[in-house]
């Protein structure tokens, strides 16, 4: 029998049999090592969790205050049944880590999600030498090449400024965890008061309580005087654009920060006024840089354009395999991360429901119905 590989793709996690530990498991397990707190990586129900200490506030917020969670620093080694683990900066979001696994001289690294550019909040990515590198490929196509962060941030600054001149609110959508902190750390804060949707507000408060240097946000409530939104910046998760919540900001301009905004089609489908191409995942050039710098002789590709990137690597002299059992799921993309963003999701859904209820009562009251509908 051939020797079992150090890490295996079970379809439910990246599994280390020797240590009996799972990296980012999709089902409840005994021992889960979590790369970062996005909910497609950190899931409910495991007995024990291990993660970087900066992930703790969010993990507890999302998975429950009383989960059994051990935290470590970057580079801190911990040994389970002879296997040496350590976490290394992935630069994706606060607390995000690559997991280095060493056993009998062989080194594997599971990247989780990562980006190379320093976002001034998460600790920047550091390449880790390894034999086998497991990489994400969310934007693993050569069409994805990000502009430098400061350029995008300047675009946001200018957009806000222009809306302010026109006395409009600037409603900026993006993922509550990661994107929003990155924005807050890099744009010019033109007002003292920045408004936020509940999902973002809660996260921001939690991070501030944990001691992170983030500006204070103001929660948008039913009672907030609508006039105050004129010229202001309002931060919102991506699910709000189809909800009634957003109506209260009128007149407003709607912006959306996402890597997917690189494509005109995606931008038009979201029907936003302004798309900002900003992603916390590696683009094509950086993906290739990361693979090269890992020095790995074998690469497994998950999470995105798995088969395409694996083929590309194979043609370029790097042995690569695709892993579709776990993340390589077609519906899995950056946008999915928000679905799991339960606080935002359920709230938007609730609002949608409520608005539906309202409309139905209104409709059933009125007896005048148009007999003809143009087709």
């Amino acid at each position, binding site marked *: 029998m051939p020797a079992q590989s150090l890490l295996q793709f079970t379809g439910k996690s990246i599994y280390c049999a020797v240590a009996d530990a799972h990296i980012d498991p999709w089902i409840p397990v005994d021992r889960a090592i979590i790369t970062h707190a996005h909910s497609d990586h950190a899931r409910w129900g495991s007995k024990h969790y291990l993660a970087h200490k900066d992930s703790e506030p969010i993990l507890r917020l999302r998975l429950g205050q009383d989960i059994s969670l051990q935290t470590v620093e970057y580079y801190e080694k911990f040994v389970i049944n002879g296997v040496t683990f350590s976490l290394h900066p992935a630069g994706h979001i606060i607390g995000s880590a690559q997991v280095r696994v060493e056993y009998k001289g062989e080194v594997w690294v599971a990247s989780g999600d990562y980006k190379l550019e320093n976002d001034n909040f998460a600790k920047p990515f550091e390449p880790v030498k390894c034999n086998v590198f497991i990489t994400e490929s969310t934007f693993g196509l050569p069409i994805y090449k990000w502009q430098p962060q400061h350029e995008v941030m300047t675009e946001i600054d200018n957009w806000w400024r222009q809306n302010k001149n026109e006395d409009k609110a600037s409603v900026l959508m993006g993922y509550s965890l990661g994107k929003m902190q990155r924005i807050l750390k890099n744009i010019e804060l033109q007002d003292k008061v920045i408004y936020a949707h509940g999902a973002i507000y809660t996260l921001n408060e939690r991070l501030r309580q944990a001691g992170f240097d983030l500006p204070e946000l103001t929660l948008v409530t039913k009672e907030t005087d609508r006039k105050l939104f004129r010229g202001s910046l309002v931060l919102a998760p991506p699910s709000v654009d189809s909800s009634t919540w957003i109506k209260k900001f009128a007149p407003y301009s709607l912006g959306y920060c996402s890597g997917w905004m690189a494509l005109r089609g995606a931008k038009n489908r979201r029907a936003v006024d302004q798309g900002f191409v900003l992603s916390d995942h590696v683009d094509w050039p950086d993906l290739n840089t990361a693979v090269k710098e890992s020095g790995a002789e074998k690469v497994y590709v998950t999470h995105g354009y798995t088969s395409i990137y694996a083929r590309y690597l194979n043609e370029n002299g790097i042995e690569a395999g695709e892993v579709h059992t776990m993340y390589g799921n077609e519906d899995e993309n950056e946008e999915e991360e928000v679905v799991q963003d339960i606080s935002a999701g359920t709230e938007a859904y609730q609002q949608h429901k409520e608005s539906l209820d309202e409309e139905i009562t209104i409709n059933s009251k009125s007896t005048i119905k148009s007999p*003809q509908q143009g087709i």
Partner: protein
Amino acid sequence: MNLDRTNKTNAKVELMKQYFLTASDEDKLWALTLFTGRRPSFKVNRTMVKEWAAEEAGIPMWLFQESYHSVGDLGETISLLLPNNKVDGSDRSLTEWFRYLGMLPGMTDEEKHDHILQAWMQLSQHETFVFNKLLMGSFRIGVSQTLVVRALAEATETDSNVIAHRVMGQWEPAGTTFEQLILDKGENDNASRPYPFFLAYPIEGDVSGLGNPEDWFAEWKWDGIRSQIIYRNNELFIWTRGEELSTEKFPELHFLSEILPNGTVLDGEIVSYMDDKPMPFNVLQTRIGRKNLSKKVLEEAPVAFLAYDILEANGVDIRGLTQQQRRVELELVHQKAPSQLVFNLSPLIDFKEWAVLRELHTLSRQNIAEGFMIKRKESTYQVGRKKGDWWKWKIDPLSVDAVLIYAQKGSGRRAELFTDYTFAVWGEDGKLVPFAKAYSGLTDVEIGQVDYFIKRNVLEKFGPVRTVKPELVFEIGFEGINESSRHKSGIAVRFPRILRWRKDKKAEEADTLEALKGILEMYR
């Protein structure tokens, strides 16, 4: 001008207006050429362009194709793949670019390669995209002609009806100037140029809401092709709605050049017509889109023109006359023509009370009509869809409200989106019974929203099919309904399509199988 930056109509018009105010006349003419879909062809082979781009991007062809598949637009794909660090780009004007591209047709492939690459190397990403669109595009910029006309009218301080008329018809940038086309006062009017169609609004509420019946004309609403027939300078032109010159497609109507006086423009409907009466649209459909109209086709689907308006008489634009006055003119023209079955007037319905009209309306299907057109006797002939003077009162299509229960991804440009849907109605046992699949009928924005919902509400997966949480309700229209033992519902509908998204309805409020069977009973 960056029309991409905004989804807002007014902002787009403003941008275009600014352009028309500041650009040179030559540039304006080229811009109009693009906006009105008249891009000249530069004879480049798309496959070659793809290869050059892949080579320049340093990627293998298969990876280029994968990228193209993901983006869905060739010009955009290339603009994203090319190595790019130019931020400012070029300062060539539109005219200069067209001149640059105009050199291509005479070149060898190698020269074309160098010529195109040289442009790519000078341009920023967005400019490369626009350049590629000029080069190979279907140039769709997300602005309708109406908006272009509005912007141009505002910029030149000319009446928008006049502008709308002037940009229509056959013209090429090479054969005219901006001055001639837009600013001249009619003398250079091109003989083929049609008038913009006046379109009706769906009637709101009961027809009696229109007030005194004596103020109105009513005609059957024919199920054909809205057309304008122009006879000027001894030449006949037939335009169909959607601004297509279709003279060749209707040889039966060419005899009109012998009977219409010079300087006549008629508005009406081309319908298929047999044994002295109109036929359903699907008969006409058999000959639309055919390149060769064989004798057989002409025999099986002959057409006639049912005229209902006259816009120009003796070379004079009479759109400013009232509907009633124009009807008199129209009847005059018709009377002078020798009696011809294929040139008819759309008859006016005789009614003194709305109740009579309401009664007759129920007979629409028998009359192969879609309902009524109701036109104010005092109204002028306007441009586009305007509320108030022309109303359409259509018969109810066969339709039910159904729940979206399965979804599948589309193909091609929409490969990443769930666009193929299966709909269900409530069965007697309180379960949803699928009865129709439909693909079309939603706007791009709605497709995006539905896709967004689906991706977040998948219950199960069977191969490519997703079971979706039953929550979204759509009104599904269809052309016919039959019994079917092959379908779980016991019913098969013909040509189902989405009429609209009933955001106002909850799944529980969708229709029942019983209701569907009721429709079956009615139309059996």
